[in-house]
């Protein structure tokens, strides 16, 4: 069984981590960020798990930089609650393109992500870019949902899950989005999935087929359909239009309502065939 290192401070969380990983990996808990770095550098672990703050309550940002420099192939799993302060902290830690994944403590299963990490199968994450772009555009009451959607949309989790993980009922979420003049939650979620697919194809060089496999999107034309429906362009058209940067602009106009966008996206309010929500 592989081994993972973990910097998790309280005993109850340690117990939860150990239980969730009992069939995935042996867990070696450490009591300091320095010890976790040393463990990663020494090479005895296949991945590391850490909360957003270290044993003294400081951000783990310096530790993540040190691990990135000294153990560049080691996957890092961030494991913590997600509230507004944590969103700010994440933005100080997460770098798009690195093998770092965030798992929501107490609500999201840890085993799946750690298994992926150990198999070297964590795809690069677009989440920090989505958080940076969309969270500041949303009212405070939507920040956690937008961050959860940015982090978890690629996983294919249902809207019900994401609303629950954001701490709100799905109906409340829909009401808040309407009040903010945003598109419905399913459209936000699917647009983020489309952006993730564009990111993987245009920035990370994955083929449409590989993206479909990585994200479990369904049939052969699912990626094209997702992009056309939520970004209005086919994959090749998006490449010509400016790739991921253009897709971000299109997505922003698409999900943050104004008159023109409301008309353009009227059809999106209907349930989509690729909508898992």
């Amino acid at each position, binding site marked *: 069984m592989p081994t993972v290192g973990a910097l998790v401070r309280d005993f109850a969380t340690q117990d939860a981590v150990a239980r969730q990983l009992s069939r995935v990996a042996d867990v070696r808990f450490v009591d300091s960020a320095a010890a976790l770095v040393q463990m990663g550098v020494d090479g005895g672990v296949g991945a590391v798990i850490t909360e*957003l703050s270290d044993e003294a*309550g*400081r*951000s783990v*940002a310096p530790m993540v*930089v040190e691990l990135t*420099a000294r153990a560049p192939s080691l996957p890092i799993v961030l494991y913590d609650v997600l509230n507004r302060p944590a969103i700010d902290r994440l933005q100080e830690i997460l*770098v*798009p393109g690195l093998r770092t994944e965030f798992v929501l403590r107490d609500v999201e299963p840890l085993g799946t992500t750690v298994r992926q990490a150990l198999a070297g199968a964590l795809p690069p994450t677009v989440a920090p870019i989505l958080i940076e772009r969309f969270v500041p555009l949303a009212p405070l009451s939507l920040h956690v949902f937008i961050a959860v959607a940015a982090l978890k949309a690629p996983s294919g989790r249902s809207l019900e899950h994401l609303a629950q993980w954001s701490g709100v009922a799905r109906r409340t979420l829909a009401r808040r989005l309407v009040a903010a003049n945003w598109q419905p939650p399913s459209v936000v979620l699917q647009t983020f999935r489309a952006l993730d697919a564009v990111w993987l194809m245009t920035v990370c060089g994955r083929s449409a087929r590989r993206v479909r496999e990585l994200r479990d999107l369904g049939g052969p034309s699912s990626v094209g359909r997702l992009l056309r429906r939520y970004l209005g362009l086919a994959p090749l058209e998006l490449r010509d239009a400016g790739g991921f*940067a253009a897709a971000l602009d299109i997505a922003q106009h698409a999900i943050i309502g104004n008159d023109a966008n409301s008309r353009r996206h009227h059809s999106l309010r209907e349930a989509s065939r690729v909508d898992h929500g």
Partner: protein
Amino acid sequence: MPQVRFAATRLAPVQGVVLELKGSQHLLVNTNNGARCVLNAMGRRIWAMLAGRPTFPALVGGLSGSHDQKRGEFARDAGRLLLAWQEAGLITWTS
């Protein structure tokens, strides 16, 4: 949830560290202890960005610019350089 301080998430030069040009060479000099470090092209760019006290992700974003596909590579290289500078007492983590 306990109060979390997150005191140090931004990168900044240590006070007393200055840039010196010697011919075509760019050097970081720690005037406190005389330590010197020659900067390569990436080092010069990073040093210029440190004035704004960036977070690590912001610094990597600035370095990679439109070369998003190389962001992971930039992160690793920048991380190595920053670690070396930190160990040499040239930079620090700040709030």
